[in-house]
């Protein structure tokens, strides 16, 4: 089984459009949308959700006002400025504690009143889930529940399963969620003898990207011929090298700046990157997205032809690599 992850560094270079087409061209594969906090693949691949499961992320600390002695130990120990002391407002106290907490939720500002002792609250957005306050609270007044941070899906598409997710609003642990999606995909691939997993990665180089690339056989970098695209491509290539993945690259909207496209090809040549092709700017890419279809399903235009060529190249690169490994 082979694993290919599509990444870019810079956002908006066309990762999802390319992935949707590759997932349409591959006869038997699992496709994963690992851009869990801004997932788009489901908008462009016709699918039917078969299974839903909630995603349990990290823990969050929450102070039980009835037990709290207002000693301030939690505020002193927290390294994430998540605890604050707020004026003891009678309206808030008369509410049940859950509602009182919502009033302070997400304001992000630390309100400290020194003249008289207020109550302590934990901002759930700032809480890192480290449990330090929970451990050191002398009154055992802080609960530490595992949070439901989103939903995971297994869907059916024309040529294999799609595994995707939706991270809750302002929730964390995107790296953990990506790892779980990939683990699920691997289990399914082995069980159902599916030869390939294609992952649509998130932008950037941070934790969900690392989780998308680790242990993948190869990455396909989708870049664009701009100064920003080239800057970010170089960083993401360095990351792929650290993680021992083979690196393939294609240039999207290549004709918008042909000189820059040539520079990228030179970079590939000098850095051991297999060049998988150029995709021209083509309105059909946006039109296919608007129609909710992959580009290769929707159009026979120049970009569609170019993406098919990229797929053929990627396939042959991967076969060569497999030969070398075995």
């Amino acid at each position, binding site marked *: 089984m082979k694993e290919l992850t599509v990444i870019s560094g810079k*956002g908006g270079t066309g990762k999802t459009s390319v992935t949707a087409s590759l997932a349409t061209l591959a006869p038997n594969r699992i496709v994963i949308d690992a851009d869990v906090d801004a997932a788009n693949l489901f908008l462009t691949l016709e699918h039917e959700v078969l299974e839903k499961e909630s995603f349990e992320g990290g823990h969050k600390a929450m102070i039980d006002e009835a037990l709290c002695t207002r000693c301030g130990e939690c505020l002193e120990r927290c390294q994430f400025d998540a605890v604050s002391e707020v004026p003891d407002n009678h309206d808030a106290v008369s509410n049940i504690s859950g509602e009182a907490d919502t009033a302070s939720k997400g304001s992000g500002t630390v309100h400290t009143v020194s003249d008289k002792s207020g109550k302590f609250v934990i901002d759930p957005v700032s809480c890192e889930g*480290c449990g330090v306050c929970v451990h050191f609270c002398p009154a055992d007044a802080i609960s530490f529940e595992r949070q439901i941070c989103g939903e995971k899906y297994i869907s059916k598409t024309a040529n294999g399963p799609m595994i995707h997710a939706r991270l809750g609003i*302002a929730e964390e642990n995107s790296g953990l969620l990506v790892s779980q999606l990939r683990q699920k995909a691997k289990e399914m691939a082995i069980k159902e003898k599916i030869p390939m997993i294609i992952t649509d990665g998130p*932008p*950037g180089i941070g934790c969900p990207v690392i989780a998308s690339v680790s242990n993948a056989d190869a990455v396909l970098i989708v870049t664009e011929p701009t100064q920003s695209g080239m*800057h970010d491509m170089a960083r993401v290539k360095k990351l792929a090298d650290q993680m021992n993945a083979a690196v393939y690259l294609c240039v999207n909207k290549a004709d918008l700046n042909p000189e820059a496209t040539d520079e990228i090809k030179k970079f590939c040549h000098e850095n051991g990157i297999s060049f998988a092709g150029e995709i021209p700017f083509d309105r059909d890419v*946006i039109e296919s997205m608007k129609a909710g279809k992959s580009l290769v399903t929707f159009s026979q235009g120049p970009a569609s032809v170019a993406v098919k060529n990229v797929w053929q190249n990627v396939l042959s690169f991967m076969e060569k690599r497999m030969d070398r490994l075995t």
Partner: protein
Amino acid sequence: MIVTIASGKGGTGKTTVTVNLAAIAPVSDIQVFDCDVEEPNSHIYLKPENITTQEISTMIPVVDKELCNLCGECEKLCQFSAIALIAGKIMTFPEMCHSCRGCAMVCPEGAINEGKRVLGSLLEGKNQRGIELIWGELRVGEAMSPPLIKQVKQRINPEKFSFVDAPPGTSCPAIETLRDSDFAILVSEPTPFGLNDLALTVEVLKKLNVPTGIVINRADTSEPTSSVQGSMPDTIIDEYAEKEGIEILQKFPFSREAARVSSKGLLLVDEMPEMKKLFQELYDKIMSRLDAIKEKNPAKQAEGTMS
């Protein structure tokens, strides 16, 4: 005042809007912060000079093996599997550490000392126009960007006017950047991906209590559009904004020329007079929105000028 430029979806034009707005603003009181520390790009356009670089690191535990009595309290407390008792030895996994210092606090022997893991760099410089740019660059291989973003934001001078370029997405890095902003400009594009991610970001901003306006990029409707049945109209963002009661601050047409100018790292306000006009209008609109916010919330303003 802190104005943050965000989007949800990547590549909609956040950086383009940030750097061109900065270039059009009166320079005496402006600072630009690039909080897309995973892939910062503002410096490509603003071209700061005399750049200073500072290494930013975070605390990780280093165990003094002489003092450690292998009690395992640190492992019990650590939520991130960053310290563990394995085969009679205490081991640390620095890349997993979130720097909560819990292990050091709980250790009865005082055996845990402070080490460091490099997160990346904090860079700053000023360009020929006088614009000050401060940005972070995450070390390749480092997973956690929020602590570095926090460091970048600590440089915000509340007496000055700040434009902050946010990372894409709607999770931790975007939230760390957006919180405490006085106003957020959401740059979107009239595509299903653009709308989907815009709506997610609007929900985040509601949770953070940050007032918002929308900029539509590549909003051109004059290009031939598809006649395919069921195809989405180019007005999807307008319809969404109306439903949500969010003001559309400006629309930028799709332009191959603009794409070409930007691809070279040049500013649209320098190269294209028609774009300069649109950015000037956008700048004026933002200023009047900020005036309204100041009037509504004078306490916050006083707080800002005092510190």
